[in-house]
């Protein structure tokens, strides 16, 4: 069995990393400012839909064992369609990761490196990620299994240590700005489950492909629980998180943690954990983007592509003139991009491929039946 294959826990953590990395940025602020007191209700509602979508994706992928969405695209539309789908997913992964990296580095710069140019902070992370990607992918996956539980425990810690500051009444009015806003417009919040995109590429990477159902469902349920805890912490501490602060809302929440005068300023520890989570997230994105690119182009030398993709991420991250522009991507463009590519395109391809397979099987069955009938008729004629 190849070493680069993922175990069940590693695959679950991989999907979770995407959401944890996004939640460190302005994703919770966007949820809270859009749905106000109904944020928790909206997250629960969207979680149920996300679990249903994940299950549908699993059911559709089940008919194509050890095939990812690129292979499936090739089976239905040939090489041209495969290339098109591959390029769309590469753009989605690289663009999202680059602009998220820019947002994250802007926060780090404001907090700890006010005199350092942003280019050096981004370059440092990109270099670290490129070096990590030169190793086997299992190295990233195993590092992820160590770091991500710490980040998850950190969010639970944040929830329970701030519990004395909670004002549970902030959940009211329960429907926030109305049913339409919470349940209809609120559907765009499905973009919080960015990890779904990576499920399409998991089957060929798994040690045991039969565990795909378990991996898909557990990772999405864990994501839901994580998001509920994150949003609840912020909603109960702050009066709707207004856009006054450029810093991550989770970071602001960590500043409230104090244990007397002995344990103070724990936010530094949290930031260190989040930097590691973010590096893992970028490593995963780089791995998947390079994997897709290799499938599309047929290039076998992975090491040459790592630096190219690293430079691509660096270049895109430097495009926005300021934090406001990169944040507007996260709040205004990313949700629609995710819904269009991951949900409509991805599920559309899978449905089409399943239908095509069903028709093909039906045709094959009919052909066999026809042949059998012909043989039977001939036998009868011979007997007569």
């Amino acid at each position, binding site marked *: 069995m190849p070493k680069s294959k993922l175990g069940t826990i590693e695959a679950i953590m991989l999907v979770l990393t995407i959401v944890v990395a996004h939640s460190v940025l302005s994703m919770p602020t966007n949820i809270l400012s859009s749905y106000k007191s109904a944020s928790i209700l909206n997250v629960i509602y969207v979680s149920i839909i996300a679990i249903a979508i994940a299950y549908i994706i699993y059911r559709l992928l089940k008919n194509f064992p050890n095939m990812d969405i690129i292979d499936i695209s090739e089976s239905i539309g040939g090489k041209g369609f495969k290339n098109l789908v591959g390029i769309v997913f590469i753009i989605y992964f690289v663009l999202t990761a680059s602009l998220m990296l820019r947002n994250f580095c802007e926060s780090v710069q404001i907090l700890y490196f*006010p005199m*350092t*140019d942003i280019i*050096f902070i981004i370059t440092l992370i990109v270099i670290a990620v490129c070096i990590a990607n030169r190793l086997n992918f299992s190295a990233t996956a195993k590092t992820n299994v160590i770091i991500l539980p710490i980040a998850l425990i950190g969010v639970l810690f944040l929830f329970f240590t701030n519990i004395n500051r909670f004002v549970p009444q902030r959940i009211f009015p329960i429907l926030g700005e109305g049913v339409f806003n919470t349940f209809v417009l609120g559907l765009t919040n499905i973009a919080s489950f960015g990890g779904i995109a990576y499920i399409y590429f998991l089957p060929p990477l798994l040690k045991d492909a039969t565990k795909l159902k378990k991996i898909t469902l557990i990772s999405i349920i864990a994501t839901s629980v994580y998001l509920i805890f994150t949003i609840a912490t912020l909603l109960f501490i702050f*009066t709707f998180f207004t856009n*006054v602060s450029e810093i991550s809302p989770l970071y602001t929440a960590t*500043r*409230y943690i104090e244990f007397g*005068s002995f344990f103070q300023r724990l936010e530094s520890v949290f930031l260190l954990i989040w930097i590691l989570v973010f590096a893992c997230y970028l490593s995963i994105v780089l791995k998947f983007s390079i994997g897709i690119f290799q499938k599309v182009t047929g290039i076998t030398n992975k090491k040459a592509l790592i630096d190219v993709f690293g430079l691509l991420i660096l270049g895109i991250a430097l495009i926005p003139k300021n934090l406001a522009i990169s944040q507007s991507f996260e709040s205004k463009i990313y949700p629609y991009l995710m819904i269009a590519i991951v949900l409509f395109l991805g599920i559309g391809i899978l449905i089409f491929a399943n239908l095509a397979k069903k028709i093909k099987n039906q045709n094959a069955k009919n052909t066999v039946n026809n042949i059998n009938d012909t043989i039977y008729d001939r036998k009868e004629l011979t007997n007569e």
Partner: protein
Amino acid sequence: MSRWIKNLFIFVIILVFISAFSSSYSSLNIDNLTYVLAIGIDASDDNKLEVSFHFSNPIPAESSASEKATPIINTVTASSLSNAINLVNGYQGRQLNLSHCKVIIFSEEVAQNGISDEIYTLINDTQVRPSANIIVSKCNAKFYMNQIKPEIENLLSKYYENFTDSSKYVGHMPDATIGDFFNALICKTCEPYAILRWN
């Protein structure tokens, strides 16, 4: 040859990063910072703010532990709190750092005119802790700061940090932090509150 070039390249990259990050390191170095313990905001005659900064004065290592640090208060007049900080940074040898600021005192006159601009400035400053207390002083804020002479506590910073602890066992003084104040300020159904002091 290629190995030599590779090592040289790594060495150059390390040098570039050291020089890039050293500026941030030196700007946040304890030797280049001066810590503000309290900020006092008074109204000025020409519709401006009179902002007083209470600095920590480290006791020299050779002095005895019982020796008290003498307070240093600098006052500037500016149109806003951020301008006042910039003004002080302009003439003081060290950069102002608000990460140990425990108390923000507003004179009653300033408080009556509204303090939301100052609260927004402070809450957006990543150095200011949400646990810093807000005081409204019946007297002049600068006068209030000058009058603080703790008898039991040697360290002024410790006094500022602990004097609201009494809210845990008596009801005379609330624990009115800037974090709670800001939350109540932007909430439509809440009322922000601060500690009222006569001195």
